């Protein structure tokens, strides 16, 4: 049963190989990007690192019935690559609609210093099973 509240925190670090692949997929010049004075994580990348661990949460959700409909990434500070971040996920709200359950997942990323690096909010819709 999915519940509102905090879920266990975990840590992640940004893998250069994966970031390079991410850049290649969208046709960015990965070499040029990586050679910048202080390469940082571009928007769109961080989300799935946490989503991988959303699967702890998603153990409670049937992924065949769930789609993401909204995603917001807010960077409080630029996040350099090769940085370890502490991730704190929570379910902020669960709203029952007639055909869907709307689940708001809110994730905060912290630097090891304790400074907030990024906040993410994702709205998932889980289709209700009908008899």
């Amino acid at each position, binding site marked *: 049963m999915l519940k509102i509240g905090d879920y266990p925190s975990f840590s992640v670090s940004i893998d250069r190989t*994966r*970031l390079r*692949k*991410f850049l*290649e*997929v*969208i*046709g*960015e010049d990965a070499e040029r990007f990586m050679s*910048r004075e*202080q390469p*940082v*994580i*571009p*928007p*769109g*990348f961080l*989300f*799935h*690192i946490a*989503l*991988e661990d959303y699967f702890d949460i998603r153990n409670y959700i049937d*992924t*065949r*019935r769930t*789609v*993401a*409909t*909204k*995603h*917001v*990434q*807010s*960077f409080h500070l*630029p996040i350099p690559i090769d940085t370890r971040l502490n991730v704190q996920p929570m379910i902020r709200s669960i709203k029952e609609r007639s055909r869907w359950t709307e689940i708001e997942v809110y994730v905060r990323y912290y630097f090891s210093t304790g400074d907030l690096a990024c906040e993410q909010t994702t709205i998932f819709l889980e*289709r209700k099973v009908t008899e």
Partner: protein
Amino acid sequence: MMDMNHVKSHLQSVNTGSIETRLIEEFAYAVEDYNKVHLNREFAISAGFRDIIAHGPLTMAYMSKLLMQVFPPEQIKELETDFHLPTYTGDTLTVRCDDIIETENGIRCTLSAINQDGKITTTGIAIIEASRINQRSADI
């Protein structure tokens, strides 16, 4: 004050080309999201789609690519996206900047992704923080 029409003229639309299964698989590896709805056709169909669908954040990534033509990633304070339609394997998206305005806190870009049928799949709003705008973007 920056000339927003001038900035917008540098934010050229991004055409993704045909989004093939291989590209979706590579994106799955890059972002560590191996949800079967993106990788297994039978599973995707069982979930109510007609084929494999691309990750929503793949479209976000193309929006980032568009923005990074002018703004380095450290200047992008926020990116908010709404996913309206799935992107299927074989689809082609055009990601564009629809509007750009200067606010007291920075720059606000309205973005959209449109598929080959002319339908909007994703809309977005990006906030470029004023305090992070550096010489590169100011020079545009």
